[in-house]
């Protein structure tokens, strides 16, 4: 056992794990959930729960480790343990970085606390799997690294491919972890001045593993779609070669842009600091090249790495200008959850490069810079936790009031199953966050509500002692009554007016927001016209 896990690795893991727990202590103890989580929280998830969007491995770990249950404290704790292990193994076994204990501890706490993890914590039902993909990918990387010097290169390559496929099957954007780490290994290997043959043999298993895993993934998607187990969705479409090529230049531009664009919880200071760290590493690396040819190779590699940091944007057919919900609100190049997989390995390498410097001045400066980044991380994470907690409380109070109003109407009966039509959503996390003027996007970190309008049966049935809401959430023309018509055409006002609510023996209609109200009345008029035509 001691040979398997080294003592310093154990203490580094513990340091990273405690840091993560500390950063998200309010969420660990507060048990915040919502959005897709309501039903899984009650009923758990099963192995096939992710198939609808093609994520065929997403629930393997929760199923086998927690019987598919979402558990307070434990689900996240287990995720943190896996993620901390991934970072430690990446540092000590894959990059094989040598440093003193203090530098190691500082690096690992800073990287573990990087706030890219915040968006992963929004959805409770996938938190364990999302946090475990880095560990599975590190095992895949280690297998690929072991292939060339071993006597069983094919077996190791195959193992690497299978592990990577498992991670990609759960969340394709996790490929960022594999790609970034592999690119960094190239830089590390190049420092050893290897022959081209050596480089070829060393990195062939990585290439085979990556391309093989993606090819199989595309085939599995095709099969699942053909069997109607998976819907065609924005996050499981298959890119073609032409779109990949045309996406290269815009993606490089977006990749650089996203390094300096502030997003909710990612202040300009944080972005500039991380960009400065990456840029300084590039400068140091280029400075160490002793010929123009080498320098050009390194520049190309860095551009390639920067491009692949935004791998999801590269394979995405959406551009931020297209008229699509996710492109408008959560473009692939600015997805914090994608950064969670791509940026920590790179920053880990950058900070290690600094702290290993032979120059005392650089070492001291980087020590201060790393400590500053660590402090910003802790502040950002706890600020996220506070916003999350207060927003969750506010939205839950809103559900209580909405439920209470519905159940207090004279026509309400607990023995009837209602179709609830909720017009509009009220995301409330933003109330507890002071945004800076330059910030962009932040769909899951800040803007998405816990109460989704298309899932009323999940949250309205959550707390009451009896279920009273059907899973349907639309009005069918044949059930429209005169009372409902009068309400929707003349009386309706938006929440909290008493005329924001209509209850008969089939429907409960709530106009939650003015926009929602307008949409609902518009749709209702169309529906009525269509029915009479």
């Amino acid at each position, binding site marked *: 056992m001691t040979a398997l896990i080294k003592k310093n690795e154990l203490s580094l893991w513990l340091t990273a794990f405690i840091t993560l727990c500390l950063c998200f*202590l309010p969420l660990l103890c507060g048990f915040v959930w919502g959005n897709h989580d309501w039903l899984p929280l009650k009923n758990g998830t099963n192995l096939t729960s992710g198939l609808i969007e093609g994520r065929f491995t997403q629930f393997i770990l929760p199923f086998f480790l927690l019987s598919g249950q979402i558990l307070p404290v434990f689900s996240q704790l287990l995720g943190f343990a896996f993620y901390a292990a991934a970072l430690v193994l990446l540092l000590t076994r894959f990059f094989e970085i040598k440093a003193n204990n203090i530098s190691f501890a500082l690096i690992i706490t800073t990287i573990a606390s990087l706030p890219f993890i915040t968006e992963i914590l929004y959805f409770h039902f996938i938190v364990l799997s999302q946090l475990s993909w880095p560990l599975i990918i590190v095992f895949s990387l280690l297998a690929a690294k072991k292939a060339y010097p071993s006597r069983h290169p094919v077996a190791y390559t195959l193992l690497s491919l299978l592990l990577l496929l498992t991670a990609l099957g759960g969340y394709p954007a996790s490929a960022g972890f594999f790609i970034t780490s592999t690119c960094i290994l190239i830089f590390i290997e190049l420092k050893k001045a290897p022959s081209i043959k050596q480089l070829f043999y060393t990195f062939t298993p990585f290439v085979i593993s990556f391309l093989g895993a993606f090819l199989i993934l595309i085939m599995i998607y095709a099969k699942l779609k053909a069997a109607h187990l998976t819907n065609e969705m924005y996050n499981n479409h298959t890119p073609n070669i032409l779109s990949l090529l045309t996406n290269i230049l815009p993606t490089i531009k977006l990749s650089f842009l996203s390094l300096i664009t502030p997003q909710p919880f990612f202040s300009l200071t944080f972005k500039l600091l991380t960009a400065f760290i990456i840029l300084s590493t590039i400068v140091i690396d280029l400075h160490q090249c002793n010929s123009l040819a080498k320098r050009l190779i390194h520049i190309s590699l860095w551009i390639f790495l920067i491009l692949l940091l935004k791998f999801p944007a590269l394979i995405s057919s959406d551009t931020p200008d297209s008229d699509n919900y996710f492109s408008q609100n959560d473009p692939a190049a600015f997805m914090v959850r994608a950064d969670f997989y791509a940026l920590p390995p790179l920053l880990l390498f950058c900070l290690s490069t600094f702290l290993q410097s032979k120059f005392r001045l650089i070492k001291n400066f980087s020590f201060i810079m790393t400590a500053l980044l660590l402090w910003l991380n802790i*502040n950002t994470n706890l600020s996220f936790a*506070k916003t999350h907690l207060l927003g969750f409380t*506010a939205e839950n109070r809103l559900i209580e009031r909405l439920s209470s109003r519905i159940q207090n109407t004279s026509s309400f009966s607990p023995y009837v199953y209602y179709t609830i039509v909720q017009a509009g959503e009220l995301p409330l996390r933003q109330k507890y966050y002071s945004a800076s003027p330059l910030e962009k996007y932040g769909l899951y970190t800040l803007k998405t509500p816990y109460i989704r309008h298309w899932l009323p049966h999940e949250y309205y049935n959550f707390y009451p002692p009896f279920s009273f809401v059907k899973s349907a959430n639309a009005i069918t023309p044949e059930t429209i009554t005169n009372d409902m018509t009068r309400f929707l055409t003349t009386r309706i006002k938006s929440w*909290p*007016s*008493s005329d924001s609510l209509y209850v008969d023996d089939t429907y409960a209609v709530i106009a939650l927001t003015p926009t929602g109200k307008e949409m609902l009345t518009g749709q209702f008029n169309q529906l009525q016209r269509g029915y009479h035509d």
Partner: protein
Amino acid sequence: MIKTLKNLSLFPDKIDLKSWLISFLIINFCFLYHSLNFMWGNHDVKFIKEELLLTSGLFEGRFTQFIPYTLLTNGQILPVLNNLIGFFFLTLALWLLAKYWKIKKSLLNYTLFITFFATLPYTLSWLYFTFITISCLLWAFIAILGLYFSAQIYQSPNKLALSSVSILCFYVTLGGYPPIINTFLVCLAAKIVFSYVFENKTLKELLIIHKYTLLNILIAAVFFKTTLHFLPHDEVYNLETTPLSALPAKFITTLKIAFSQFYITTPFMPRGYKLLLLTLCILAFLGALIKTDGYTRKLITLVLLIGTIWTTSLTTFLVVPHTEFVSRIDFYGFAFLYAFALGLLLSFELPLAQSIALILAPILIFQNIINDYRALKSWQQGFEAEFQILDRIIERVENHPNFTPSRQYRFYQIGDISLRPAYHQTRYDKDDVFLISLPYLAMWQGENLMEFYSPFAYINHQTPLLTTDITPEVYDFFIHKAAPFPHKNAVFINNDIIVVIYDQTGLDDFRQKIKQLYPEI
């Protein structure tokens, strides 16, 4: 940096680090329930949502109060971290105090000393307002740092540099929370007793060593008063000082107050607990008298001890407002006297004194933790209960037929409901507003509270309720129909104003005011 710290004997060794870490963990365990439950209210409401600005404390003359928040958390009040940072500084302050007083160094002694003070229920008073927790616990550290540097001046070649840093320390802390002056004087007086008893120094020698400290405090106080003079602060209660002519008479009053602190009970500090603390003090002071040789020196020790006790009421002596038996002021004064007593017991060579300290300190720490948890239980239940009432009131307002969320109303809250006392029925001699009786839903924060969880922003924060709003209709409602919550007439809404009535006392006051305004109606 390391060299400077070593020169100042501030570079921590293994005992320092271990005792600091163990104490820090115990302190965090003691207030864990608070750290995990994120209770806030009263002054905090607006700041929890938005952020603290450097200028947020200026209106009451606290010009440095929010520098620590701006530097450490970008002006945010963050759950968990707020307490962690505060306790970090408090632990550091007490470790430095142990060094300043030269308490006999051992892992056990330092751990007991730090933990005993930090877990005293006085610390709780800084957790009630989350918006000043970090600053006010940091001031303790900076104040002791100032004292520590001042004590080094006598034998240092860098007198000017050390003096400047000390003055800055005293000035910054006075600018953050003026009652910190208690800490300056209690700790200095205690230091003099330590030196007199254990180092056999004469009064003259002590004056030569500590004249710098007194001078630095004086200079900082002058700077502080001058700064206040130029600041655009409001005329608030906590800036009024006692006139010079009244000081002699007040000396005796404050001496009485200082001594009565030993037995007067306050919330979460019951009689038995106070008696145990008194026993600690009596044994320590007796020990100091026994340890001193000669009747004259014994008499001087006695006078010094009485002087030290008196300094715990220095703020009460210096200012007009009521400051006696207020936990957060006693945190800076009387709590240090208890620490002084434990420090004395831990420093005696006599095995009996050591044994007493080693028996009493763990018992007292255990009692501290029990009292803290009792308090936190009452706080949490009070917090929940008050916010449930707020929910019900918001539902009443937003469901009112006259209410339209798109309109802007001016808001007025009549009275408040404080529910922490409902969960703590034990009797005590003196109430303490911060420990128990202040509400989370403070009357003057009503408009921020109404909108806190609501999806809408319907309060006009710019204009208050005006005398012209009291129309005959409004007058009639408040004089004849209004009643406090939960009565249906606890909420009044017309086109412009929302008024919520929380309690009868508030309503009576309000009726009195509008009757005076409109005697003709």
